[in-house]
């Protein structure tokens, strides 16, 4: 069993790992929300054209 790391640098290393994990999570959230809004914008674009087509078909 490995001895627990009680060196003064441990906290700093843990914080760095936590920050990196958090940064990765943030990048994922940024990417997901950007794609979501792009999809919403595309839906409005095609949706309105489709609405006019459906109205014309009546």
């Amino acid at each position, binding site marked *: 069993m490995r001895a627990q790391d009680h060196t003064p640098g441990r906290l700093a290393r843990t914080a760095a790992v936590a920050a990196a994990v958090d940064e990765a999570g*943030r990048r994922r*959230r*940024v990417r997901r*929300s*950007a794609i979501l*809004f*792009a999809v*919403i*914008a*595309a*839906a*409005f*674009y*095609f*949706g*309105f*054209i489709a609405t*006019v087509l459906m*109205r*014309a078909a009546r």
Partner: protein
Amino acid sequence: MAEHHAHAAAHADHDHKPHGWRRWVYATNHKDIGTMYLVFACIMFFVGGAMAMVIRLELFQPGMQFVDPQFFNSMTTMHALIMIFGAVMPGWTGLANWMIPMQVGAPDMALPRLNNFSFWILPFAFTLLLSSLFVPGGAPAGGWTMYPPLVLQNGASFPMLIFAVHLMGASSILGAINIVVTIMNMRAPGITLLRMPLFVWTWLITAYLLIAVMPVLAGAVTMLLTDHFFGTTFFTAAGGGDPVMFQHIFWFFGHPEVYILILPAFGIISEIIPTFSRKPLFGYETMVYAVASIAFLSFIVWAHHMFTVGMPLAAQLFFMLSTMLIAVPTGVKVFNWTATMWRGSLSFEPPMLFALAFLFLFTIGGFSGLMCGIVPADYQYQDTYFVVAHFHYVLVPGAIFAMMAGVYYWLPKWTGKMYDLKLATWHFWLSAIFVNVLFFPQHFLGLAGMPRRIPDYAVQFTDWNMVSSIGGFFFGAAQVLFPIVIIKCIRSGQPVGNRAWEGAHGLEWELPSPPPYHSWTTPPSDAVIARGAEH
């Protein structure tokens, strides 16, 4: 060793900024991109303003003096397109780029390369639009609303107009996505939604509006394009299409667009009035809810722009009443700004002067908007100069004054220097006086029945047109002071501290003036947030 120290010193300011043209062409820094947006908006403001001068010159007297009717109509169309999509919208995006990351404690925008792309689309879009002045048939002349079938009669400029509008729309949508994503994901720990400055809030809501309605405009102009070139008949009555349908779609975009142009102004005014009243903003949360309500209502009022096309009485009543309803949250905001000043320790530096002028003059534009929203009255006002007076009161002493207030407010932060307050005060007073000389008589002209979008008019309209034109020339000339103040500030302004204005609150004032190239690389501490994020 000495080399090591020099290296360390070079890194101490964290300014790893590129130099020369690469800094701007490859820019990903939010401050650089914000600066480019603001410079672009300023150039477009003067280009669009020059077109307004041509319009007022021709209207100085009845009869045809200087330009032919086709060119006059091109001027009104291009003036509107350039001012809306080239000056006001990029101006707000520039302020958003500069301020939002600094105000929410973020190191930059969430998507910096997309930010670069959003900006660099714009010069191409406007080069394309402006170059249509030189093609056979001249620039688009059917009005910025692009109503068919008139717009379909444009010559070679038609596809250029459509492509330019598409590019502007793409730029706005990408910019809006970036702003929403930044605000939702990049706030420093401790900056909760209800601790964000009002400018950030208003931009968040504006960005949602942009994402919802710019694609609708893009869809509408795509259908115009296929009607013109591919034989479809979306809006052509002869083929079973409906030209009125275009008006519905256009104004479904167009009315929220009005709020896209004005909501960031509400945010800036909500920053400036507390600073120069030395009091916290009265009713912060009600302001947020009021802005959200205005944004929601903006989606259900579009047909008030087109009462006279003919629609069922129930529809007219619905759109009239929903329009009246917008006065409630707008009134809340005006009363909150007034209450903020109540018993405050007021001072009247240029940002506050512009903010106060906004408060009075935007309210005039709001009231004349209510008048236009009343169906029977609108039958009288439709397509007259009354409508021109109304929307210019909303957009010039409304949006443009607020933007100038914002620039004068944050310029010391951006440059680290204080500008010439006396010259800026001159800029304010000349603008405030002549904007009224320019636009107020247009109410009288409209009520007397002068139609809009005409190069010639009946002689009884001469006097007020002359007054309006004189106001226009002086207002235009006064705007030259604006870049002079800015350039003079950059060159020889007096250095200022972090908090350039005594009563300023907000995270941006916790940063040095000018802020480092990369700010908030470490998120602000709780203490800094507590000190800075008071509203």
